[in-house]
């Protein structure tokens, strides 16, 4: 009996065949690991009103912030806009806060928004796409015309508009979860379009016909026959989509920072740096690098997954 190839062997093979994809996966895993250790509390110089980064967390890799004196000059002043050094890997910003710590916490927010938005978008988009593609005819046509209309809305303008009018919240500010849901809702049209096109071809497969012959209901065919077979497309959409959403969230908190939930985000850091042109650009540069890295990582992942999972592109 041939030995079953080990998981490790598979990973090594994948890395050799798709080096760029492997880099992408590595970066994504790194992003997730970073957010596990990210502090929830307050970090920063104790004299700052909000102590943006606390010293109370226990994770070893953040322990270097234990020394509160690291936020002060020898003569007692707050270290403002200092260049990257051993104490502050990315330097400090205009309020003396550690940029590395803020970048890490920003990653948590980006991933949170990205994942929840994609859950909303894929669940609703897939449902619409499968139903619309499966039952062709008048239902399909009318759904698709409405989707065409929705797709004609410029996405970024739609986002800014929904976030500012904010129909989901009673207060003046949207919560982070609401932002994620809004981003997801805007993405539904794109998801359902791809899913529908896949379903249109899956529907014609013989095993679907066989299911119909043995008397399976439409619901059973959609959930048990079609859904498992379009899983590859869903996974690809999910991973590529996260990059798009992270970018959209950053763009949103750059362009209308007062309308999105407060707190530390890459977009906010970028916009802060941009409104203080002429100061040292560290906060902006590092948050820009973080956004670019995250988007690149999820793009590479999506590309590699597409190559591996999509039978039409599987290399001979």
């Amino acid at each position: 009996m041939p030995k079953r190839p080990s998981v490790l062997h598979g990973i090594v093979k994948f890395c050799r065949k798709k080096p760029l994809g492997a880099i992408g996966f590595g970066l994504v895993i790194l992003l997730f690991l970073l957010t596990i250790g990210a502090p929830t509390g307050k970090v920063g110089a104790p004299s700052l009103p909000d102590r943006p980064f606390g010293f109370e967390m226990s994770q070893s890799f953040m322990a270097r912030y234990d020394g509160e004196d690291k936020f002060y000059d020898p003569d007692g002043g707050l270290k403002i806009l200092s260049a990257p050094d051993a104490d502050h890997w990315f330097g400090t910003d205009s309020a003396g806060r550690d940029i590395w710590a803020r970048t890490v916490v920003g990653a948590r927010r980006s991933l949170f928004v990205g994942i929840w938005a994609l859950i909303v978008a894929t669940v609703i988009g897939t449902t619409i796409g499968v139903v619309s593609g499966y039952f062709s005819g008048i239902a399909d046509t009318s759904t698709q015309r409405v989707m065409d209309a929705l797709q004609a809305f410029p996405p970024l303008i739609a986002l800014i508009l929904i976030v500012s009018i904010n129909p989901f919240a009673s207060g003046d500010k949207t919560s982070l979860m609401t932002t994620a849901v809004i981003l997801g809702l805007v993405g539904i049209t794109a998801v359902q379009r791809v899913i529908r096109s896949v379903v249109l071809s899956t529907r014609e497969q013989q095993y679907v016909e066989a299911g119909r012959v043995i008397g399976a209901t439409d619901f059973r065919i959609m959930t048990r026959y079609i859904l498992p077979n379009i899983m590859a497309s869903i996974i690809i959409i999910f991973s590529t989509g996260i990059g798009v959403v992270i970018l959209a969230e950053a763009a949103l908190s750059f362009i209308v920072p007062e309308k999105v939930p407060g707190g530390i985000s890459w977009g906010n850091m970028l916009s802060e740096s941009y409104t203080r042109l002429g100061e040292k650009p560290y906060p902006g540069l590092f948050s820009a690098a973080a956004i670019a890295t995250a988007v690149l990582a999820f793009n590479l992942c999506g590309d590699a997954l597409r190559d591996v999972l999509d039978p039409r592109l599987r290399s001979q």
Partner: protein
Amino acid sequence: MQAYIIRRCLLNLIVIWIVATMVFGALRLDSDNIVSKMRGQCAAGGSTPQQLKECDQIARAALGLDASIPEQYTDFIFNLVQGDLGNSAIGNKDPITSEIKERALVSIELGLLQLAFGLIIALPIGIISAIRQDTWIDYILRAFSILLLGIPVFVLAIVVILLTSQYASSGPLAPWLTPSATYTDFVDPFGWTSNESDPVHNMQNMLAPAIIGGLGSAAIIMRFLRSQMLEVLRQDYVRTAWAKGLRERVIITRHALKNALIPVLTIVGIILGTLVAGNVLLESIYGLPGVGQYVVFKIAQTPDYPAVQGVVIVVAVTLVFINLLIDISYAWLDPRIRYS
């Protein structure tokens, strides 16, 4: 073909009607919320219930909410068909159609420049990368394109501005790299919006965002073009062309490139779509008075709903018809595509 175009146009009209109805409905669904957000603009001021009620009434009148719903709807559609998008709800109550028209010129200029730069960068790189597949030059060019794909355009623009403000804030290059909002005001090249015309100054405003936007588009076009060229270069008719003894230049440009460009059109269409939508981010960052900056401005202050609604409808109409043009041009470029 004619039947196809007519059918598509009718279908597009339906789509536009759905868009208009949605836009109409969205305001009515949440009108109390929007009206209450406009209280800050109220001249009467005050916070007694009586004064607030008056303010809300003024806001409702400005938004056109003071008639019955069917009446509002017929008015809205009737005006829309005539190209009248109503008046802004805030400030001088300017007519929105002319506001958008004025700004569209800036957006169109930026969009066309961006597309031009995108193509200038992407075409040679895509072609070279395909005909020298798997050589070091292909690897370098592909790495370049992947890097560009990863760096979002607006992030790139901000990084360029941050670095400029740090290291090149004075000197001969400064006016070319600094956004017009912080440097000088925008001037159009041929006196479209004012009596001034100053092409050089206009280029100082436009060149940096156009090149940066172009780089972003180039990354996408380049990847498509490369994979498409690779496919076309393996076709029988290209082998025949080689066998006939044609020169490489002729084979690449006449036989391969022409066929490889068809899918690239889709992306060109998407970029053209931003012509009128305005490149929201680039325009805001560089302070260019285009449609994108207009709409952000209109949303970011007290939401000026009629203005936003006007922009959304104009953009939707443009997008829908650009898509139609792209579909038609497929058939024109590739005679094998037949619409029936």
